[in-house]
């Protein structure tokens, strides 16, 4: 069968791409081949718009055992102890069907981790929605959180943290980014189809028509009303099958029964088959008839690109096949040998004795065009940056503080994380509600601290500086928990790459991340790019979500955000700039302004703070530590008090002498933290701060049931009511689909 002339366009391939495919094959492609190329060369699978730029990210480091390009990055966190860490986006599917879109996003990232031979032990979710006064936003948020909860809890992986923020620009394009942490149990696996004559084992759920062309259709084109027509590709998550798939996969690895492993996600079988062969320099011969199907009369192309969930592909030596099949049978996981590794370099697909596809594996996996798309700095950005940043004083300080505490982006996210099992595996030393989640690795002393951060407003005002701030904040979060920042994963969420202004934002984001990661010593171990996040031509704020991973040699030195005891001294670390209001929560909530330039970041000062916090934590000097971010010093202090249900009395009037009083309270200058400690440690801490050249001021003491700010005081119970009720109250209002 030869492809119809225009079929390639329907499949999303350009005329140039068709020409390139003809050149690779030396003939016209078959329909099945064309379908396989269309998914493998889609933006989502091939990274054709981003690849050129991603290579600029720093990815080397002593602790990095496996960098970008595999299922997940692998980081050595203690001698002989390695973890896998990776983030993924599932934005478009979650907009189409929030519950199942988010659920299958969790399933996908978990399989990425498993494909490395690692047991998934923690999830994080980074969520962005429109403003909550829109009933549809409430519906989306409820569905997404329920989807993550339902899948993550059932599959038995704790969701230990994340972030949830609200901006109008995400109203018709929510962001659902999920990160997963795993620990390598027996040995590191990789997706390689080595060994001619080895068998190709497909195991997991059966293959149906669901999700055909999901990657190319949903994630690689703009969104408009016709997207509602794309709904048949919606997939239903099956966490039960995923749980069995995890156990079967890890047992196959532990018993040394497989030589290569890769998950099936976007691109269906075509993806691991071509990538594993291409990476090993081998070929793969598949008999599509042997794939276990859920629906009848599926076409070969449907079988090759179906994105049915909860499936994996393994390479097995012939002598191990029976045992491997027995392992799958034990776990109740359907498994079939569907082909074998060949010495050619081609992916061949056979149906009923006819060859329906025969293409160089490398052509599918690696030969997608690499585009250098036009980039253009938007004209509006100069005006935007030159506009007033919303840093004018408030009518009254107390009122402004209450407004900020009730702001959906700042208020307590308990409504979200109480729906997630965040305790399973007995490793959650630092539960949700703090700066970073601290996870003790099973049966070990070593722990990791993880945090996701993506300040969209900062990035809108200046994508490069915003991206630097994103990396800095995520690193500061793990440092505040007592960890040494080590490496990042990321999810870069942007608009349409065919728009030169979006492409410029993308380039700037990459520049910012590189810069910050180099300065902070945290290489990039992998990540994900999600383009086409826009509705009716309006792009979202460029939103790079950084997933930082830090290491604590011992979980015992972890530090929480909550004050610990009455009578402890409260210290503010870092210096405060009166003008850091651009893109701040204060400017948005009090003056309804998102303009100016984001806070200035000195990466050396930032790094010094991290070194200081890490060594203070290791020496056990701090009772509590909380970094300053959205809402500035005042909000951070309130959070420290609420976390422990313990009040304080402070005077922050001196920390920002150059500015008006509210600057000390709400300015979002980075590189700062609030620490509490016993009186006897103040001197040592001050000495340490001096060594690291981090400014330190004593601002008050803990105790009582009031939050005494000097100019006024609020009762602890009052602020607790404000921040704890904000989300439940809003979300109990109606939800429209």
């Amino acid at each position, binding site marked *: 069968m030869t492809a119809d002339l225009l079929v390639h366009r329907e499949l999303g391939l350009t005329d140039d791409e068709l020409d390139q495919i003809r050149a690779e094959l030396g003939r016209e492609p078959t329909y099945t081949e064309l379908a396989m190329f269309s998914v493998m060369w889609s933006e989502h699978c091939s990274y054709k718009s981003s690849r050129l730029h991603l290579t600029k990210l720093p990815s080397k480091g002593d602790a990095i055992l496996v960098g970008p390009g595999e299922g997940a990055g692998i980081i050595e966190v203690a001698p002989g102890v390695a973890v896998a860490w990776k983030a993924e986006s599932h934005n478009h599917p979650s907009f189409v069907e929030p519950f199942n879109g988010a659920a299958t996003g969790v399933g996908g990232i978990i399989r990425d981790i498993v494909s490395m031979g690692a047991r998934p032990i923690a999830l994080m979710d980074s969520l962005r929605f429109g403003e909550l006064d829109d009933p549809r936003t409430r519906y989306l948020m409820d569905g997404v959180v329920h989807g993550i909860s339902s899948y993550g809890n059932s599959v038995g992986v704790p969701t230990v943290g994340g972030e949830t923020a609200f901006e109008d620009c995400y109203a018709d394009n929510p962001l659902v980014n999920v990160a997963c942490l795993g620990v390598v149990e027996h040995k590191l696996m990789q997706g390689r189809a080595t060994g001619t004559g080895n068998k190709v084992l497909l195991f997991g759920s059966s293959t149906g028509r669901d999700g055909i062309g999901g990657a190319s259709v949903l994630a690689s084109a703009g969104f408009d009303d016709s997207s509602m027509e794309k709904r*048949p590709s919606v997939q*239903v998550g*099956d966490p039960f099958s995923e749980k069995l798939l995890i156990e079967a996969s890890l047992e196959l690895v532990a018993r040394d029964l497989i030589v290569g492993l890769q998950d099936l996600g976007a691109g269906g079988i075509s993806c691991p088959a071509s990538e594993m062969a291409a990476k090993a320099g081998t070929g793969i011969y598949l008999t599509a008839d042997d794939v276990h199907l*859920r629906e009848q009369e599926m076409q070969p192309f449907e079988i090759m690109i179906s994105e049915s*969930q909860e499936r994996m592909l393994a390479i097995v030596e012939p002598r191990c096949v029976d045992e491997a099949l027995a392992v799958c049978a034990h776990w109740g996981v359907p498994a079939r040998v569907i082909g074998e590794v060949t010495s050619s370099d081609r992916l061949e697909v056979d149906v009923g004795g006819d060859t329906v596809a025969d293409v160089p594996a490398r052509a599918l996996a690696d030969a997608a065009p690499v585009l250098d798309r036009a980039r253009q700095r938007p004209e509006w950005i100069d005006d935007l940056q030159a506009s007033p940043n919303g840093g004018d004083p408030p009518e009254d300080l107390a009122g402004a503080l209450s407004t900020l505490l009730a702001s959906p982006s700042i208020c307590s996210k308990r409504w979200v994380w109480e729906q997630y099992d965040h305790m399973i595996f007995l490793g959650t030393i630092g539960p949700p509600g703090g700066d970073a989640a601290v996870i003790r690795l099973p049966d070990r002393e070593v722990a990791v601290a993880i945090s996701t951060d993506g300040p969209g407003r900062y990035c809108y005002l200046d994508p490069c500086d915003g991206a630097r701030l994103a990396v800095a904040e995520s690193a500061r979060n793990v440092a505040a928990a007592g960890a040494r920042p080590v490496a990042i994963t990321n999810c870069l969420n942007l608009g349409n790459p065919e728009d030169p202004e979006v492409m410029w934002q993308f380039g700037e984001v990459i520049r910012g991340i590189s810069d910050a990661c180099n300065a902070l010593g945290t290489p990039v171990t992998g990540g994900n790019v999600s383009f086409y996040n826009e509705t009716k031509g309006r792009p979202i704020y460029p939103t790079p979500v950084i997933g930082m991973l830090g290491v604590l040699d011992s979980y015992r030195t972890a530090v929480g955000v909550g004050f610990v005891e009455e009578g402890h001294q409260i210290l503010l670390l870092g210096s405060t700039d009166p003008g850091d209001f651009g893109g701040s929560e204060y400017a948005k909530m009090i003056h309804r302004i998102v303009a100016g330039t984001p806070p200035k970041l000195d990466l050396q000062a930032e790094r010094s703070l991290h070194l200081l916090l890490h060594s203070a934590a290791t020496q056990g000097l701090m009772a509590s530590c909380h970094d300053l971010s959205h809402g500035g010093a005042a909000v951070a202090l309130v959070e420290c008090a609420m976390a422990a249900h313990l009040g304080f009395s402070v005077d922050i009037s001196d920390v920002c002498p150059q500015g008006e009083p509210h600057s000390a309270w709400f300015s979002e200058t980075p590189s700062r933290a609030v620490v509490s400690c016993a009186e006897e440690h103040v001197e040592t801490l001050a000495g340490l701060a001096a060594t690291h050249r981090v400014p330190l001021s004593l601002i008050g003491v803990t105790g009582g049931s009031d939050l005494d700010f000097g100019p006024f005081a609020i009762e602890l119970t009052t602020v607790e009511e404000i921040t704890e009720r904000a989300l439940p109250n809003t979300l109990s209002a109606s939800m429209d689909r």
Partner: protein
Amino acid sequence: MAFSAQVNVMLKPGIADPQGQTIERSLPVLGYTGVRDVRVGKRIELQLEAADEGEARDRVTEMCDKLLANPVIESYEVTIQ
């Protein structure tokens, strides 16, 4: 007038139903063979006021579109008594 309405909400054909499949797989273990195509959905029963049966049906159908069913993955069927 008061009417009773029953709504059956099922996953659309082609949408995977892991719940139904799991039940199907467990039935032979309990000694029930020859059972196929198990699908699990929702049933909603309610009482409503309407001028006549036609109006009752229209209102329930509208409620299904807006709230009771998820048109992305589910189809529904309304009975009025």
